[in-house]
């Protein structure tokens, strides 16, 4: 057979592509449908949030960081608040810690539901997306109940939360959790043993435990490869050590394993939410009793001179944070989500830096998809669950 001239084809996937999760751009070199090389390009969603934070008072940064990783808003603000609290040397009351655990776990479920839905849609099971978003809608309703805001509740405050849990919140969460437990089984019916789904995801985008560590991967991706790293277990915070839960791990490291990990994590989160609900009395303190940081309740502001002055000071000048640097990681839905807060002793951060798991996942993307096919690229991008808002800060 005579030699036929062949050449590879370069395709730009993204930044406007239906399945690149926002504005990730991939320059793919294709040999037929096989990926020969892939160059992820980021920066299309640069928001400058880290820099903006330096112009804001400590408290004002909270709504900003919630907009970085928009699928795990409250995990972000919680990590940031905890970093500032570490600088301030605050010790949180037990009830506040439990409320935060409750909110963080609901946020994890929220993020994983979005992930499961979009991932299902990307491998072609469109209905899964609508089922997952149906349950997520109920979660957003809970957020609305909690703070009057659905996607970015800004309910976290440095030193606690904004106000006490609303009336009937316990019952609403319980109802949701009971419903979700049943519905999770239904999602699994559609995917877990589905021959086509297994064929599409098993051995696709696999990574070894060793490589996962080398690339700095964390969260469900690393745990799917057999690295049992979970901040909640390794560096417990908010009293996670007193909760009864397990960290699911698998060893295959492929897309299917990541799916299994995330579904298992949702079940663990349900357990955690139940335990947290049992520990939180319906009424009680919701912030540290530190007059420098926590504004006084409204009825006192209206009746007492001192409270009015205190309210005015906190809301106009903010509060100062002692000079220093603190890094606090939490286990967000995507893995170790950490914030470094550096203070020069003023009422604004001197520097605020986020450690985002999505950025590292983007880094490893190339090694996961080279040698695979176009259809695999979509499955893998979905499975590493990047949020572009978190990659470009």
């Amino acid at each position, binding site marked *: 057979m005579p030699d036929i001239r062949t050449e590879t084809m370069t*395709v730009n996937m993204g930044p406007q592509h239906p399945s690149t999760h926002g504005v990730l751009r991939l320059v793919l070199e294709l040999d*037929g*449908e096989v990926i020969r090389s892939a160059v992820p390009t980021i920066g299309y969603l640069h928001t400058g949030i880290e820099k903006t934070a330096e112009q804001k008072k400590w408290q004002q940064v909270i709504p900003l960081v919630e907009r970085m990783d928009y699928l795990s808003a409250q995990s972000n603000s919680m990590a940031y608040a905890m970093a500032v609290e570490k600088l301030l040397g605050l010790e949180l009351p037990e009830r506040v810690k439990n409320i935060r655990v409750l909110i963080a776990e609901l946020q994890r479920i929220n993020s994983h539901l979005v992930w499961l839905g979009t991932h299902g*849609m990307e*491998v*072609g099971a469109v*209905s899964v997306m*609508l089922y997952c978003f149906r349950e997520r809608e109920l979660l957003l309703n809970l957020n609305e109940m909690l703070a009057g805001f659905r996607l970015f509740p800004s309910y976290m405050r440095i030193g606690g939360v904004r106000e006490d849990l609303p009336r009937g919140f316990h019952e609403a969460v319980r109802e949701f959790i009971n419903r979700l437990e049943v519905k999770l089984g239904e999602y699994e019916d559609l995917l877990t043993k589905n021959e*086509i789904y297994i064929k599409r995801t098993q051995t696709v985008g696999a990574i070894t435990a060793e490589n996962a560590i080398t690339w700095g991967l964390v969260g469900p991706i690393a745990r799917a490869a057999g690295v049992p790293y979970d901040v909640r277990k390794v560096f417990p915070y908010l009293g996670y050590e007193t909760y009864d839960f397990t960290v699911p791990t698998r060893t295959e490291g492929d897309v299917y394993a990541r799916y299994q990990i995330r579904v298992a994590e949702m079940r663990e989160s349900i357990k955690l939410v139940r335990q947290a609900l049992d520990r939180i009395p319906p009424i009680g303190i919701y912030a540290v009793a530190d007059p420098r940081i926590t504004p006084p309740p409204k009825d006192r502001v209206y009746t007492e001179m001192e409270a009015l002055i205190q309210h005015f000071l906190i809301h106009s000048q903010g509060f100062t944070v002692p000079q220093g640097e603190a890094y606090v990681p939490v286990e967000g839905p995507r893995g170790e989500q950490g914030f470094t807060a550096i203070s020069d002793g003023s009422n604004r951060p001197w520097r605020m830096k986020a450690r985002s798991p999505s950025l590292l996942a983007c880094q490893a993307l190339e090694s996961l998809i080279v040698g695979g096919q176009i*259809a695999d690229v979509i499955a893998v991008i979905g499975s590493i669950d990047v949020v572009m808002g978190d990659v470009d800060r």
Partner: protein
Amino acid sequence: MFPVIVGQIGLLLVVWFALQISAAVCVYCERKWAAYLQQRVGPTRVGYAGLLQPLADIVKLMFKENLRPKGADPFLFYLAPVISATACFAAFAVVPFGGETTLFGLLDAPMRLQVADVNVAVLVVFAIASMGIYGIVLAGWSSNSKYSLLGGLRASAQMISYELSYALSLVGVIILANSMSLADIVEKQSHVWYIVLQPLGFLIYLTAGIAETNRAPFDFPEAEQELVAGYHTEYSSMPFALFFLAEYVNMVTVSAVATSLFLGGWLLPGINTGGWGWMVFLAKVFVLLFLYIWIRWTLPRYRYDQLMAFGWKFLLPAAVINLLVTAAAVLYLGV
């Protein structure tokens, strides 16, 4: 009264319009059923319960600007949707959808409800249906767009992997009926439907039929999550509408052929359907269409190399075994 030829010309027009309307009905049903499967309500705004939605879609498409990418081959670019649409309409011509009738005495001789009774109808269906794939391949190639090209390539790879088993799955029926005319095949099923005698053949046909119509889980040529819109990425306005039409008419044709070959066409065993045969036929086609829609909205998509492996390593051997068993049974048992 009128000569038969008048009836046949009338029938031709009726089938032509009915197929177009069937595409509209399919679009509406698909959107409604998909919505109910996904706990939504689907279209509700245009007309009663959204019934006029397909009409609104068509009007919208007509008023869209017709764009052609720079560097696209204009002749092939506009020929491709025409081929696709023509093929699926033409294939329906040989499908019988009712017994002989004089249309309540209007005609002087009985006429079969079938546009053309060809004695090799099964072959005609295949030959024409396979032409449809040229539309997709040409669309992918002539668009001068990378995603379209990939869609076109996938379509050709897909075709060679399912067409063989698609054809072989029907040979069993042909052996049993001892005829290649669809009308004869239907009439041989007056006592027992061939789905009972050929369950494996029916399943293979159904599976390959999904690939033939490019629908999920085998919708690789358009795979919107991977290739944006595949072969019709660059199409807009009426050329796009033609592809859209072709997809749905193709579904109807594949279902209609399946009904004739395996589900007894317009016949119900033990019941004389008389002049209502075409209603029975429609009902059966409708059931198959529902099955296609149900499958599409439930299953994830295969990868196209996996379909090739599935086609060659599973469907083809299964079809061959089915054929051998049928042939042996006919030979020794004289069924």
